[in-house]
C-alpha cells in the first residue's frame, strides 16, 4: 500500500518553529508504523528523529501522537492507519527535536510518589508470603512501561504542567495496594494534595491511550475513593 505520512518536524538548530514534512512510502499492510519511519530515515531523510528500541511494545520508547491519539509506533500497523497518517510529538512535553520530547519532568513526577516498596520489617530468610488474591489487586499497574502516553493525553496536564499525571498515580497505586508495602498512607497524603488525584476529571483519555491496556482511570478512582473513604470500593 502507498501511504502519505505527515510528520511534525522541528530542529532547534535550524527551525524557528515547527513545520509539516510529508513523505510517501510503500508499505506492507502488516508493517508497523515504526517500520515506515525507519524506511523514511534509512532511505529518504536521515535527519528524521524519533526514539525506538524494542519495536514490540514493551520498552515504551516510541510513544507519539498518531492521527490525534497517543500510540506506540511499533504497535500500530499500517493497515490500521489507512493511506494517510499524521504523526506529532506527544503533547504536554517540551519538544527536543522532531518526535523526541523531554521526559525528565515525567520521571520526576513518577519519583515524587515513592514508586518503590517500603517495608520496615526485617527481611525473612525466604520470600514474603502473599496470596494470589492479594497480588491480583495491584496486577494491572505492574504492566506500566512508563511510555508517557497516558499522561500526555490528559487535558488536565495540558492546562497545568505541575499536575502529577496518570502514570505516576498508576505507579503509586501499584504500591498502595501491595500487601507487602507499609507506606500507603504516605503516598495517599502526597496524592491528596493540590496537584494530586483531584485534577483528574475522569475524561478517560489515559485509559484509551495506554498501550498496555491498563484501566488507568479506574486505578485513579480507586486511589480517590481510598483517600475519601479509606476503601477502594468506596462503600
Amino acid at each position, binding site marked *: 500500500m502507498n501511504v502519505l505520512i505527515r510528520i511534525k518536524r522541528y530542529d532547534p538548530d535550524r527551525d524557528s518553529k515547527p513545520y509539516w514534512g510529508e513523505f510517501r512510502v510503500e508499505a506492507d499492510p502488516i508493517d508497523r508504523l515504526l517500520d515506515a519511519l525507519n524506511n523514511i530515515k534509512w532511505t529518504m531523510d536521515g535527519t528524521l528523529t524519533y526514539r525506538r528500541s524494542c519495536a514490540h511494545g514493551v520498552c515504551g520508547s516510541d510513544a507519539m501522537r498518531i492521527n490525534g491519539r497517543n500510540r506506540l509506533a511499533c504497535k500500530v500497523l499500517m493497515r490500521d492507519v489507512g493511506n494517510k497518517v499524521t504523526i506529532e510529538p506527544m503533547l504536554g512535553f517540551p519538544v527536543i527535536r522532531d518526535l523526541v520530547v523531554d521526559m525528565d519532568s515525567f520521571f520526576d513526577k513518577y519519583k515524587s510518589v515513592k514508586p518503590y516498596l517500603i517495608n520496615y520489617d526485617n527481611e525473612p530468610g525466604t520470600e514474603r508470603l502473599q496470596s*494470589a488474591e492479594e497480588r491480583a489487586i495491584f496486577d494491572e499497574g505492574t504492566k506500566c512501561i512508563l511510555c508517557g502516553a497516558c499522561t500526555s493525553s490528559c487535558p488536565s496536564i495540558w492546562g497545568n504542567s505541575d499536575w502529577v499525571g496518570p502514570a505516576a498515580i498508576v505507579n503509586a497505586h501499584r504500591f498502595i495496594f501491595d500487601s507487602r508495602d507499609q507506606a500507603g498512607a504516605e503516598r495517599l497524603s502526597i496524592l491528596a494534595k493540590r496537584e494530586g488525584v483531584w485534577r483528574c476529571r475522569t475524561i478517560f483519555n489515559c485509559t484509551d491511550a495506554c498501550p498496555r491496556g491498563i484501566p488507568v482511570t479506574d486505578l485513579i478512582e480507586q486511589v480517590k475513593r481510598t483517600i475519601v473513604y479509606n476503601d477502594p470500593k468506596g462503600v
Partner: protein
Amino acid sequence: MYYKFDVVIVGAGGAGLMAATQLPNASVAVITKVYPTRSHTGAAQGGVAAALGNQEEDHWKWHMYDTVKGGDYLVDQPAAEILAREAIDAVYELEHRGLPFNRTPDGRIDQRRFGGHTRNYGEGPVRRACYAADRTGHMILQTMYQTSVKNQVRFFNEYLMLDLLMNDGQACGIVALEIRTGEIHTFHAKAVLFATGGYGRAWRVTSNAFACMGDGMSVAYRRGIPLEDMEMYQFHPTGIYKVGVLLSEAARGEGGKLLNGKGEYFMERYMPTLKDLAPRDIVSRCIIQEIKDGNGVDGKDYVYLDVRHLGAAKIAEKLPDITDFARNYLGVEPITEPVPIQPTAHYAMGGVPTDTDARVVIDEQWTPLPGFYAAGEVACVSVHGANRLGTNSLVDLIVFGRRAGKHMAKFIAENDYVVLPNDPEAYSRALVERLYSSKGGESAANIRSAMQNEMDDKVFVERSENGLHKALDTIAGLQAAYTNVQLQDKGRHFNTELVEAIELGFLLDCSEATIHGALARQESRGAHFRLDFPKRDDANWLKHTLAFKGERAHDVRLEYKDVILIDDPIFKPKERKY
C-alpha cells in the same frame, strides 16, 4: 565535561542496576543510551530459574547439572555452581524489593517448567522458573529501577559510550557522547562495569531491541581485550514469523507444542523425554530439519506454535503478552489458531571474558584487568557455554550483577584513582568527527542491511566452512565501505543518524569475531552446528575461543583456554540426550 565517580556502570538493564544497588556507600554513575526502563531486560518474558522447590522437590545441584549439560559442556563448572546456588538468594532479594511474582495457593513464589530444566539429573521436567505472568524481565527491570530511585542512583540517560579508558594496565573510566547535546564527556572512575547487553541486531530476524548493538563488546575488543566464544550465538526456536518478536518458551512450559505443516507434533519424534522442552539449540535445529524435509507450513520456512489446548483462561492468566503479540503482529488468535513461528536471533553466550567476580580477564591465563568488570549478556563467565537454558539469562543478570557490585565495593575501598591517559577524548572525538566530515557517500543503513542478510544466510542455525568464508569476505568488504559512511544529518542535537552509524561499527566488530570463532571451531556443539563437522569433538574442542582484534577483518588472532571442570563424575562431559 569531566566527571569523577568511584564507579561508572555502562548500561541500565538488570545487571547494571543490580550492581548499582550493591554500592550504597560509593558515588556511582549509571550511563545508558536509552532511559533505564527501556533496557532490553524488560523484554524477557518467561521466568528466572532458582531451585526454590516451591512446587516440587528441587536442588541447586540439579539446576547446575542442567546448566552444564544444556551448555553442551562448554560451561565453566565452578561458575555454573555459583549461578545455581546464588540464584535462590538472589530471587528472594528480588521478592524483598517488591517484585510481583505469581504465587502458589499457599502464598509462595509460583514456579513453572522451562526448556532443559529437569529433576534428578535429566529424569523429566521440573518446575523451577519463578515468574510474573509472561513479563518477568519487565518486572525485574521495573523493580531494579524502583530500587535505584529509592537509593538515589545518579543516571546519565541517553549517553552513548564510545571508549574505555585505560592507563598503567588498569581501567580508569569511559568516554561518552551526550546524545541530546552532541557533547563528549569523560567519566573518570576507580572501577568500570560494562553491562551493555548483546548484539542481536547483527541479524535481520531477531528478538533483540534496536539498542542491542554490541556496544560493550566492541569497545573492549577495540582496546585489545579478547571476545570469548562469540561463535556460540543462540537462535530462539519461537520468534514470530518474519518479525522475530519472541514468543516465550513459557508457552511450551505451560504445555504448548510445536506443530509442523502435516499436523504432527514433531518434537516427540526427536526428543522423547523432554519433547518440546528440550534446550533451544536442539529445538531450533529440529525446526530447520522439518522445513528442509518439506514439513514447513504450506512448504514454507515456518512451523506453528500451538497453545489452543491450554484454553482461554490459562492463556489469559499465564501468557497474556505473547498472545497479544500474535494478535497484533500476525492477526492470529492463539486461543483458536496455531501461531506461525521461526527461529530468531536471540542471545550471545559469548562476550567479554570474566571470572566469577565479574572481573574482566584478558588472556588465556585468566589475567584480570584491574578495575574493569562486565556482567550480563555482554560478559562470558562462562555459565551458558555453547547454549543457554531458558531463564538462565535473568539468573545471570541478578547473580553476576550482584557479584560485580559487591566486588567493586571492595575494589574501590582498597584502590585509588589511576590518572587518566593523555588526551582521553582524542579517539572518541576523531570517531565522531570522521563521521561528520566524511564525504564517502556510503549509507550506514545499506551496510547494516547487507550485514544482516549475510548473517541470516550464512551464520545462522547451520553453518559450513564455505559459507563462513564467504561471510567473512562480505564483512571485510562492509568494513571497508564503513570507512566511507556519510551522514545526511550534520546536526549536533539528538543526532540519531550519528548514533546508528557508530553502532553499526560495533555490530561489524561483533560479526567479525563471531565468524572467526565459527570458522575455526571444526565441530558441532550447542548452538554452533557445522554441516561439515556434525559431531562434538571433546578431544580437540573442549575449550573456549578467545578472539583478539587485528587491523582488518581477516587479521583476527585466535587463542584458546581450557574449560574448567570440577572433580565430580556427574558433571563429566558425555553425550547430550533428552
